[in-house]
């Protein structure tokens, strides 16, 4: 489970990036967070990963306060970023092997890696190819394979579908659904309203660091999410 309680981040220049943010992502749930650029979505993820310290409040991963036990909390979370380049001179196997070992998993074989890579839909002939030759979709799949093989119960995704072609985007969503069905808590920051609507169990709207709207899948029935998004951004002064 992922949770924030009054999470606040104010930078030294006075900019309030996250303002008393409180929400939960339950196991088996996909939570999509919308917001304009600079609304605080990525900062929230950075606070979960303890890349920056909060000014106030708490971020919890499986009930572990990430500022008090940053290393332990990372055992329970996987991260997929928007445009990870990975190590270009490494193949998919080598990248996977390195990050798997960093995640503390030992004794995995090439067969396990191949299984993880197949599960995210990466073509088999790309397994031994240097990742610098991958398309963005292939890199995102490899990034997801790294998250899959870690097997953490929580996934943080920072705009993972931006720039993906429709087919790759759909495959990516299917993987997230599969993870959700396995009982993982998935938090995804995104601008991709169309794709998010297909998979989100709940959506949140962030504006100037605040969570200004929270809706469940049931709430969204019959609603035009795009219109809602625009309406919220305009009403509250984007």
């Amino acid at each position, binding site marked *: 489970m992922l949770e924030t309680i009054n999470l606040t981040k104010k930078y030294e220049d006075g900019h309030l990036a996250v303002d008393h943010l409180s929400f939960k992502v339950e196991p088996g749930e996909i939570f999509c967070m919308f917001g304009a650029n600079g609304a605080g979505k*990525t900062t929230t993820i*950075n606070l979960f*990963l303890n*890349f*920056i310290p909060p000014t106030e409040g708490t971020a919890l991963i499986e009930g572990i306060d990430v500022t008090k036990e940053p*290393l*332990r909390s*990372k*055992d329970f*979370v*996987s*991260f997929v*970023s*928007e*445009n*990870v*380049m*990975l*190590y*270009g*001179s*490494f193949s998919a196997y*080598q990248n996977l092997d*390195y*990050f798997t*070992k*960093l*995640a*503390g998993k030992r004794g995995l074989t090439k067969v396990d890696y191949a299984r993880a890579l197949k599960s995210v839909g990466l073509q088999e002939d790309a397994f031994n190819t240097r990742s610098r030759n991958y398309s963005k979709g292939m890199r995102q799949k490899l*990034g997801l394979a*790294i998250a899959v093989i*870690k097997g953490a119960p929580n996934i*943080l995704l920072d705009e993972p579908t931006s720039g993906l072609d429709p087919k790759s985007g759909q495959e990516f969503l299917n993987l997230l659904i599969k993870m959700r069905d396995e009982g993982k808590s998935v938090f995804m920051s995104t601008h991709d309203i169309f794709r998010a609507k297909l998979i989100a169990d709940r959506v949140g709207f962030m504006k100037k660091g605040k969570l200004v709207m929270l809706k469940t899948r049931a709430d969204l029935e019959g609603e035009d999410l795009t219109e809602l998004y625009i309406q919220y951004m305009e009403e509250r002064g984007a």
Partner: protein
Amino acid sequence: MLKDIIKKEILETITSPKFVFTFLLCAVLILLSVYTGITTYRSEQKEYNAAVALNKKNLESQSSYQALAGLGPKIDKPPHVLSTIASGVSEAVGRVASINIAYDPNLVDSKYESNPVFSVFGALDLTFIVKIVLSLFAILFTYDAIVGEKERGTLKLTLSNRVPRDRLIMGKVIGGYISLLIPLIIPLILSMLILLVYPNVSLTGQDWGRLMLMFLMFFLYLSVFFTLGLLVSARTNKSSTSFLVLLFIWVVFVTIIPKVSILAASQLNPIPSVHEITAKKDAFLQQVQGGAQKKVLDWAKENAPNASKDAKKYQEDFKKFLEDYQNDLTSKIEENNAALERDYPARKTSQERLAINISRISPASALMFSTMSLARTGLDDHEQFLASLRAYKPSFTRWINSRMMKSINFATGEQGKVNLADMPLHKFEPESLSKSLARTLPDFGVMLVLIIIFFAGAYASFLKYDVR
């Protein structure tokens, strides 16, 4: 985990095109420099042996001691085997000195004198390659070590795992350093093998000790740029900025500080020029020589009545007078020269020391001075050799004066045959390894201090580094 990070760093580097390029270039340059160094040393050794034999023959063939005094023995500076690694100032300073009654010995006929174009480009020795090429490679290997990972997003991905930052930076330091040393160590081992098997090139135990200390200095020098690269990489947000900052610091360290330090020392501690001193010496010599003729004529005039009374005694007295007078003149010339130079060497040395100490802020200067001292091709070795020539000159002068007077038969004008059996020989005892090491300790200290500062800076910066 540390092992995994180190392994990844090495693997990532050695599979990159820049490593292949670096390795090939290093191998070619290092092997080429050592090979050309050895062949140059061998030809210098042959030239030296030939020159020593020729000088001996020339001295033996002189018809009289007077002719021998005019010619004087020529002392050649022997080449040193470690000039193959660090040529130092050996090509800029002279290789041979004439020991002459009138003038102070000085080394002339340098390689640069015989071919000035060498001075434009300098020698392509191993020290030059490490100083210029490998330090640039150290920058190339590290400028994006941290900031590059941030740009690729791999730093965030790495730190989203249970990876302590201190372990990550240590892994990067160890792995990165090993990757940098591979292109250096393999050609260095091959170079040592060449030194071992090359005919007529033999290194003593002390030479091997000196060589190992020089290699240690190379590693320390590269560590300075390696840790500096990490520091700058951990203090910047763009790899292009990191590279430009490092390039700027490299230019300052390698080219600007050494040159500016010489200018600064000459401004802070000015000394008279060599030409000024030489002109004063020449003027005194002319004055003394002019007076000498008069003095001899006066003596002859004064003692003329004795010549007819007892010719033999007159001849003996004349010989005695000439010998005493010659010794007196020599002493006067030497006293005058000494008075003129009394402060000069001390002031010159003080200016040189000041320039050296200012330039030691730069690791490139510390590298040059330490390797020159260890290879015995530096300024110190040159000064010591000159000092040995100056110490030899009075003993030769005394010997030739005494032989000249004793060999002349004033009645017949005949001169005795030259016998070199008891001619004093020049001796030069090179500095011991322990003394050279003591001399280079400040340079080792400079390197270690810079490494500690840069590493501590990189370490502390990375612990606080904004990975976003």
